[in-house]
Protein backbone atom coordinates (compact mmCIF):
# COMPACT_ATOMS: atom_id res chain seq x y z
CA UNK A 1 0.00 0.00 0.00
CA UNK A 2 2.75 2.40 1.04
CA UNK A 3 4.73 1.57 -2.10
CA UNK A 4 1.70 2.16 -4.29
CA UNK A 5 1.09 5.55 -2.71
CA UNK A 6 4.71 6.51 -3.23
CA UNK A 7 4.44 5.56 -6.89
CA UNK A 8 1.39 7.74 -7.27
CA UNK A 9 3.15 10.73 -5.81
CA UNK A 10 6.07 10.22 -8.17
CA UNK A 11 3.68 9.97 -11.10
CA UNK A 12 1.69 13.09 -10.14
CA UNK A 13 4.87 15.05 -9.50
CA UNK A 14 6.34 13.84 -12.78
CA UNK A 15 3.34 14.98 -14.83
CA UNK A 16 3.23 18.38 -13.16
CA UNK A 17 6.97 18.72 -13.58
CA UNK A 18 6.71 17.91 -17.30
CA UNK A 19 3.92 20.48 -17.83
CA UNK A 20 5.81 23.15 -15.92
CA UNK A 21 8.95 22.41 -17.89
CA UNK A 22 7.21 22.75 -21.26
CA UNK A 23 5.47 25.98 -20.20
CA UNK A 24 8.79 27.38 -18.93
CA UNK A 25 10.49 26.56 -22.23
CA UNK A 26 7.72 28.30 -24.20
CA UNK A 27 7.97 31.35 -21.92
CA UNK A 28 11.71 31.45 -22.42
CA UNK A 29 11.22 31.43 -26.18
CA UNK A 30 8.64 34.25 -26.09
CA UNK A 31 10.83 36.26 -23.74
CA UNK A 32 13.78 35.89 -26.12
CA UNK A 33 11.67 37.32 -28.95
CA UNK A 34 10.15 40.19 -26.96
CA UNK A 35 13.00 41.32 -24.73
CA UNK A 36 14.51 43.59 -27.36
CA UNK A 37 11.30 45.29 -28.57
CA UNK A 38 10.27 45.89 -24.95
CA UNK A 39 13.62 47.49 -24.12
CA UNK A 40 13.30 49.62 -27.25
CA UNK A 41 9.76 50.69 -26.31
CA UNK A 42 10.93 51.72 -22.85
CA UNK A 43 13.82 53.68 -24.31
CA UNK A 44 11.48 55.46 -26.75
CA UNK A 45 9.16 56.29 -23.84
CA UNK A 46 12.03 57.80 -21.84
CA UNK A 47 13.34 59.74 -24.85
CA UNK A 48 9.86 61.10 -25.62
CA UNK A 49 9.44 62.13 -22.00
CA UNK A 50 12.82 63.90 -22.02
CA UNK A 51 12.00 65.72 -25.25
CA UNK A 52 8.66 66.76 -23.80
CA UNK A 53 10.00 68.37 -20.64
CA UNK A 54 13.14 70.03 -22.00
CA UNK A 55 14.50 70.85 -25.41
CA UNK A 56 18.18 70.02 -24.83
CA UNK A 57 20.74 67.21 -25.08
CA UNK A 58 20.70 64.68 -22.27
CA UNK A 59 23.46 62.74 -20.64
CA UNK A 60 22.48 60.11 -18.06
CA UNK A 61 23.72 60.46 -14.49
CA UNK A 62 24.25 57.24 -12.59
CA UNK A 63 21.59 56.74 -9.93
CA UNK A 64 21.90 53.78 -7.57
CA UNK A 65 18.84 51.55 -7.56
CA UNK A 66 16.50 52.33 -4.67
CA UNK A 67 17.73 55.92 -4.20
CA UNK A 68 15.10 58.00 -2.41
CA UNK A 69 14.83 61.68 -1.60
CA UNK A 70 12.90 63.02 1.39
CA UNK A 71 10.93 66.16 0.53
CA UNK A 72 10.34 69.05 2.94
CA UNK A 73 6.91 67.58 3.72
CA UNK A 74 8.57 64.31 4.69
CA UNK A 75 7.56 62.14 1.74
CA UNK A 76 10.08 59.60 0.50
CA UNK A 77 10.23 59.61 -3.28
CA UNK A 78 12.14 57.12 -5.36
CA UNK A 79 14.54 58.50 -7.98
CA UNK A 80 14.45 56.24 -11.04
CA UNK A 81 16.95 57.97 -13.32
CA UNK A 82 18.48 61.38 -13.86
CA UNK A 83 19.96 63.28 -16.78
CA UNK A 84 22.31 66.26 -17.02
CA UNK A 85 20.96 68.55 -19.71
CA UNK A 86 23.05 70.77 -21.98
CA UNK A 87 22.01 73.06 -24.81
CA UNK A 88 24.57 74.50 -27.25
CA UNK A 89 27.31 73.63 -24.75
CA UNK A 90 25.55 75.58 -22.01
CA UNK A 91 24.36 74.06 -18.75
CA UNK A 92 20.58 73.72 -19.10
CA UNK A 93 19.71 71.99 -15.82
CA UNK A 94 18.54 68.48 -15.04
CA UNK A 95 15.83 66.01 -15.92
CA UNK A 96 14.92 63.63 -13.13
CA UNK A 97 12.62 60.64 -13.40
CA UNK A 98 10.80 60.03 -10.12
CA UNK A 99 8.27 57.48 -8.97
CA UNK A 100 6.22 59.07 -6.15
CA UNK A 101 3.68 56.77 -4.53
CA UNK A 102 0.16 57.54 -5.76
CA UNK A 103 -3.09 55.76 -5.03
CA UNK A 104 -2.11 52.34 -6.31
CA UNK A 105 1.64 52.44 -6.80
CA UNK A 106 4.42 54.50 -8.30
CA UNK A 107 3.47 57.30 -10.70
CA UNK A 108 6.41 57.34 -13.09
CA UNK A 109 7.11 61.01 -13.84
CA UNK A 110 9.86 62.83 -15.75
CA UNK A 111 10.58 66.30 -14.34
CA UNK A 112 12.64 68.97 -16.09
CA UNK A 113 14.46 71.53 -13.90
CA UNK A 114 16.20 74.42 -15.59
CA UNK A 115 19.56 75.80 -14.45
CA UNK A 116 17.85 78.93 -13.06
CA UNK A 117 15.60 76.92 -10.74
CA UNK A 118 12.22 76.62 -12.40
CA UNK A 119 10.33 73.54 -13.52
CA UNK A 120 10.41 73.43 -17.32
CA UNK A 121 7.72 70.80 -17.49
CA UNK A 122 6.73 67.32 -16.42
CA UNK A 123 5.73 64.23 -18.32
CA UNK A 124 3.91 61.37 -16.64
CA UNK A 125 5.29 58.24 -18.24
CA UNK A 126 3.01 55.78 -16.53
CA UNK A 127 0.06 56.17 -14.21
CA UNK A 128 -1.35 52.71 -14.89
CA UNK A 129 -1.65 51.84 -11.22
CA UNK A 130 -3.94 54.82 -10.61
CA UNK A 131 -7.74 54.60 -10.83
CA UNK A 132 -8.85 54.67 -14.48
CA UNK A 133 -10.92 57.79 -15.18
CA UNK A 134 -9.60 59.57 -12.07
CA UNK A 135 -5.91 59.32 -11.15
CA UNK A 136 -5.06 57.93 -14.57
CA UNK A 137 -6.22 61.29 -16.00
CA UNK A 138 -2.93 62.68 -14.71
CA UNK A 139 -1.38 61.74 -18.05
CA UNK A 140 -3.55 64.39 -19.75
CA UNK A 141 -1.77 67.61 -20.83
CA UNK A 142 -4.28 69.88 -18.98
CA UNK A 143 -2.92 68.55 -15.69
CA UNK A 144 0.75 68.24 -16.60
CA UNK A 145 1.01 71.70 -18.17
CA UNK A 146 0.32 73.35 -14.80
CA UNK A 147 3.73 72.32 -13.52
CA UNK A 148 5.73 74.22 -16.12
CA UNK A 149 7.02 77.46 -14.60
CA UNK A 150 6.59 76.35 -10.98
CA UNK A 151 9.54 77.17 -8.70
CA UNK A 152 11.98 74.31 -8.07
CA UNK A 153 12.32 75.03 -4.35
CA UNK A 154 10.14 72.32 -2.86
CA UNK A 155 6.97 74.41 -2.59
CA UNK A 156 4.94 72.82 -5.38
CA UNK A 157 1.60 71.72 -3.93
CA UNK A 158 -2.06 71.29 -4.80
CA UNK A 159 -4.52 74.09 -3.97
CA UNK A 160 -5.84 72.20 -0.94
CA UNK A 161 -2.32 72.27 0.56
CA UNK A 162 -1.78 75.95 -0.21
CA UNK A 163 -0.13 75.58 -3.60
CA UNK A 164 -1.35 76.50 -7.05
CA UNK A 165 -1.79 73.12 -8.71
CA UNK A 166 -5.44 72.38 -9.49
CA UNK A 167 -5.90 68.79 -8.37
CA UNK A 168 -7.56 66.24 -10.64
CA UNK A 169 -11.23 65.72 -9.85
CA UNK A 170 -11.53 62.84 -7.40
CA UNK A 171 -7.80 62.17 -7.45
CA UNK A 172 -6.22 64.40 -4.83
CA UNK A 173 -3.86 61.61 -3.79
CA UNK A 174 -2.45 61.24 -7.29
CA UNK A 175 -2.17 65.03 -7.71
CA UNK A 176 -0.40 65.33 -4.38
CA UNK A 177 1.95 62.47 -5.28
CA UNK A 178 2.94 64.15 -8.55
CA UNK A 179 3.54 67.47 -6.74
CA UNK A 180 5.75 65.75 -4.18
CA UNK A 181 7.52 63.95 -7.02
CA UNK A 182 8.31 67.32 -8.59
CA UNK A 183 9.63 68.63 -5.25
CA UNK A 184 11.81 65.55 -4.80
CA UNK A 185 13.18 65.91 -8.33
CA UNK A 186 14.02 69.56 -7.62
CA UNK A 187 15.79 68.61 -4.41
CA UNK A 188 17.74 65.88 -6.15
CA UNK A 189 18.77 68.30 -8.90
CA UNK A 190 19.84 70.88 -6.30
CA UNK A 191 22.01 68.26 -4.59
CA UNK A 192 23.78 67.64 -7.89
CA UNK A 193 24.93 71.26 -7.86
Amino acid at each position, binding site marked *: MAGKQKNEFV*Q*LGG*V*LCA*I*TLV*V*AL*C*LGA*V*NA*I*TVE*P*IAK*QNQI*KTENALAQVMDADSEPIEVAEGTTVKTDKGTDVEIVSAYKMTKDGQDAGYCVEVAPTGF*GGGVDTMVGISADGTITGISII*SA*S*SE*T*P*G*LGANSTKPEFQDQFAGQPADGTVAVEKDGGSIVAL*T*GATITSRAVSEGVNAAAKFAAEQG
Partner: protein
Amino acid sequence: MSFGKNLKEGLFTNNPVLVQLIGMCPTLATTTSVINGVGMGLSATAVLICSNIVISLLRKFIPNKVRIAAYITVIAGFVTMIDLLLQAFIPSLSASLGLFIPLIVVNCIILGRAEAFASKNSVGASAVDGLVMGLGFTFALVVMSVVRELLGAGTIGGGLITVFSQPATIMILPAGGFLTLGFVIAVMQKLLKKGE
Protein backbone atom coordinates in the same frame (compact mmCIF):
# COMPACT_ATOMS: atom_id res chain seq x y z
CA MET B 1 -24.39 21.53 -32.17
CA SER B 2 -24.02 24.15 -34.89
CA PHE B 3 -21.73 27.12 -34.48
CA GLY B 4 -24.65 29.56 -34.61
CA LYS B 5 -26.31 27.83 -31.71
CA ASN B 6 -23.01 27.81 -29.82
CA LEU B 7 -22.57 31.49 -30.44
CA LYS B 8 -26.07 32.31 -29.20
CA GLU B 9 -25.37 30.32 -26.07
CA GLY B 10 -22.06 32.10 -25.39
CA LEU B 11 -23.42 35.56 -26.06
CA PHE B 12 -26.87 35.32 -24.51
CA THR B 13 -28.47 32.24 -22.99
CA ASN B 14 -25.33 31.03 -21.22
CA ASN B 15 -23.30 34.25 -21.17
CA PRO B 16 -20.38 33.70 -18.75
CA VAL B 17 -20.76 37.06 -17.03
CA LEU B 18 -24.44 37.88 -17.24
CA VAL B 19 -25.92 34.40 -16.77
CA GLN B 20 -23.22 32.18 -15.24
CA LEU B 21 -22.02 35.12 -13.10
CA ILE B 22 -18.33 34.20 -13.28
CA GLY B 23 -15.41 36.49 -14.04
CA MET B 24 -16.85 39.34 -11.97
CA CYS B 25 -13.48 40.80 -10.94
CA PRO B 26 -12.23 41.83 -14.41
CA THR B 27 -15.79 42.77 -15.38
CA LEU B 28 -16.00 45.33 -12.61
CA ALA B 29 -12.40 46.49 -12.80
CA THR B 30 -11.78 47.05 -16.51
CA THR B 31 -15.09 48.42 -17.77
CA THR B 32 -14.27 52.06 -17.06
CA SER B 33 -13.78 52.81 -20.75
CA VAL B 34 -14.81 51.03 -23.93
CA ILE B 35 -11.21 50.66 -25.13
CA ASN B 36 -10.22 48.92 -21.89
CA GLY B 37 -13.30 46.70 -22.03
CA VAL B 38 -12.65 45.58 -25.60
CA GLY B 39 -8.92 45.10 -24.96
CA MET B 40 -9.55 43.01 -21.85
CA GLY B 41 -12.28 40.99 -23.58
CA LEU B 42 -10.18 40.14 -26.61
CA SER B 43 -7.03 39.36 -24.57
CA ALA B 44 -9.03 37.04 -22.33
CA THR B 45 -10.62 35.44 -25.41
CA ALA B 46 -7.18 34.73 -26.87
CA VAL B 47 -6.02 33.13 -23.62
CA LEU B 48 -9.29 31.19 -23.31
CA ILE B 49 -9.04 29.69 -26.82
CA CYS B 50 -5.38 28.73 -26.35
CA SER B 51 -5.86 27.25 -22.89
CA ASN B 52 -9.00 25.35 -23.93
CA ILE B 53 -7.14 23.78 -26.85
CA VAL B 54 -4.10 22.79 -24.81
CA ILE B 55 -6.11 21.48 -21.88
CA SER B 56 -8.33 19.48 -24.22
CA LEU B 57 -5.21 18.00 -25.86
CA LEU B 58 -3.79 17.08 -22.46
CA ARG B 59 -7.06 15.88 -20.92
CA LYS B 60 -6.02 12.21 -20.93
CA PHE B 61 -2.48 13.00 -19.78
CA ILE B 62 -3.29 15.18 -16.76
CA PRO B 63 -4.12 13.11 -13.67
CA ASN B 64 -7.37 14.09 -12.01
CA LYS B 65 -5.76 14.86 -8.66
CA VAL B 66 -3.43 17.58 -9.90
CA ARG B 67 -5.63 18.96 -12.67
CA ILE B 68 -6.20 22.41 -11.16
CA ALA B 69 -2.47 22.97 -10.66
CA ALA B 70 -1.82 21.83 -14.23
CA TYR B 71 -4.58 24.11 -15.64
CA ILE B 72 -3.30 27.14 -13.76
CA THR B 73 0.25 26.52 -15.00
CA VAL B 74 -0.95 26.36 -18.62
CA ILE B 75 -3.16 29.46 -18.23
CA ALA B 76 -0.46 31.47 -16.44
CA GLY B 77 1.96 30.56 -19.21
CA PHE B 78 -0.34 31.87 -21.91
CA VAL B 79 -1.16 35.04 -19.97
CA THR B 80 2.52 35.85 -19.46
CA MET B 81 3.18 35.30 -23.17
CA ILE B 82 0.33 37.63 -24.14
CA ASP B 83 1.53 40.19 -21.60
CA LEU B 84 5.04 40.15 -23.08
CA LEU B 85 3.76 40.26 -26.67
CA LEU B 86 1.47 43.22 -25.90
CA GLN B 87 4.31 45.10 -24.19
CA ALA B 88 6.57 44.47 -27.15
CA PHE B 89 4.22 45.08 -30.07
CA ILE B 90 1.11 46.99 -28.88
CA PRO B 91 2.58 49.19 -26.12
CA SER B 92 -0.37 51.60 -26.07
CA LEU B 93 -2.84 48.83 -25.18
CA SER B 94 -0.36 47.39 -22.72
CA ALA B 95 -0.08 50.79 -21.03
CA SER B 96 -3.82 51.16 -20.54
CA LEU B 97 -4.52 47.56 -19.53
CA GLY B 98 -1.24 47.24 -17.61
CA LEU B 99 -2.30 45.83 -14.31
CA PHE B 100 -5.25 43.82 -15.58
CA ILE B 101 -3.47 41.49 -18.00
CA PRO B 102 -1.77 39.41 -15.27
CA LEU B 103 -5.20 39.20 -13.60
CA ILE B 104 -6.46 37.09 -16.52
CA VAL B 105 -4.68 34.19 -14.79
CA VAL B 106 -7.26 34.21 -12.03
CA ASN B 107 -10.21 34.98 -14.33
CA CYS B 108 -12.58 32.21 -13.27
CA ILE B 109 -14.12 32.04 -16.75
CA ILE B 110 -10.90 30.54 -18.06
CA LEU B 111 -10.41 28.05 -15.24
CA GLY B 112 -14.16 27.39 -15.24
CA ARG B 113 -14.27 26.51 -18.94
CA ALA B 114 -11.13 24.37 -18.59
CA GLU B 115 -12.76 22.42 -15.79
CA ALA B 116 -16.33 22.28 -17.12
CA PHE B 117 -15.73 21.91 -20.85
CA ALA B 118 -12.21 21.49 -22.21
CA SER B 119 -11.30 18.65 -19.85
CA LYS B 120 -14.23 16.58 -21.13
CA ASN B 121 -14.52 17.47 -24.83
CA SER B 122 -12.62 17.21 -28.11
CA VAL B 123 -10.08 19.80 -29.24
CA GLY B 124 -12.34 21.29 -31.93
CA ALA B 125 -15.32 21.65 -29.62
CA SER B 126 -13.12 23.17 -26.92
CA ALA B 127 -11.71 25.75 -29.32
CA VAL B 128 -15.26 26.74 -30.36
CA ASP B 129 -16.28 26.88 -26.71
CA GLY B 130 -13.31 29.12 -25.93
CA LEU B 131 -14.22 31.42 -28.81
CA VAL B 132 -17.93 31.78 -27.99
CA MET B 133 -17.39 32.13 -24.24
CA GLY B 134 -14.66 34.70 -24.91
CA LEU B 135 -16.98 36.62 -27.21
CA GLY B 136 -19.73 36.43 -24.59
CA PHE B 137 -17.31 37.86 -22.03
CA THR B 138 -16.27 40.60 -24.46
CA PHE B 139 -19.93 41.38 -25.23
CA ALA B 140 -20.74 41.78 -21.53
CA LEU B 141 -17.67 43.99 -21.00
CA VAL B 142 -18.58 46.20 -23.96
CA VAL B 143 -22.18 46.68 -22.75
CA MET B 144 -20.94 47.52 -19.24
CA SER B 145 -18.20 49.86 -20.41
CA VAL B 146 -20.43 51.78 -22.85
CA VAL B 147 -22.88 52.53 -20.03
CA ARG B 148 -20.19 53.38 -17.47
CA GLU B 149 -18.07 55.50 -19.78
CA LEU B 150 -21.08 57.45 -21.06
CA LEU B 151 -22.46 58.18 -17.60
CA GLY B 152 -19.20 58.35 -15.66
CA ALA B 153 -16.90 60.23 -18.02
CA GLY B 154 -19.44 61.71 -20.44
CA THR B 155 -17.62 60.30 -23.46
CA ILE B 156 -18.10 57.59 -26.06
CA GLY B 157 -15.38 55.34 -27.49
CA GLY B 158 -12.61 56.00 -24.97
CA GLY B 159 -12.82 59.79 -25.02
CA LEU B 160 -13.30 60.16 -28.78
CA ILE B 161 -16.60 62.01 -28.52
CA THR B 162 -17.53 64.12 -25.52
CA VAL B 163 -21.26 63.99 -24.93
CA PHE B 164 -21.56 66.10 -21.80
CA SER B 165 -19.08 67.74 -19.48
CA GLN B 166 -20.59 67.15 -16.04
CA PRO B 167 -20.50 63.36 -15.73
CA ALA B 168 -21.50 61.33 -12.67
CA THR B 169 -17.99 60.26 -11.64
CA ILE B 170 -19.37 57.53 -9.38
CA MET B 171 -20.18 55.46 -12.45
CA ILE B 172 -16.51 54.82 -13.22
CA LEU B 173 -15.73 54.13 -9.57
CA PRO B 174 -16.22 50.63 -8.15
CA ALA B 175 -19.69 51.50 -6.84
CA GLY B 176 -20.81 52.42 -10.35
CA GLY B 177 -19.47 49.08 -11.57
CA PHE B 178 -21.76 47.20 -9.19
CA LEU B 179 -24.73 49.43 -10.07
CA THR B 180 -24.23 48.91 -13.80
CA LEU B 181 -23.69 45.18 -13.43
CA GLY B 182 -26.92 44.83 -11.45
CA PHE B 183 -28.98 46.71 -14.01
CA VAL B 184 -27.42 44.93 -16.99
CA ILE B 185 -28.07 41.52 -15.42
CA ALA B 186 -31.66 42.55 -14.66
CA VAL B 187 -32.26 43.60 -18.27
CA MET B 188 -30.65 40.38 -19.50
CA GLN B 189 -32.91 38.26 -17.28
CA LYS B 190 -35.98 40.12 -18.55
CA LEU B 191 -34.96 39.56 -22.16
CA LEU B 192 -34.16 35.88 -21.59
CA LYS B 193 -37.54 35.31 -19.90
CA LYS B 194 -39.24 36.92 -22.88
CA GLY B 195 -37.32 34.71 -25.28
CA GLU B 196 -38.37 31.48 -23.58
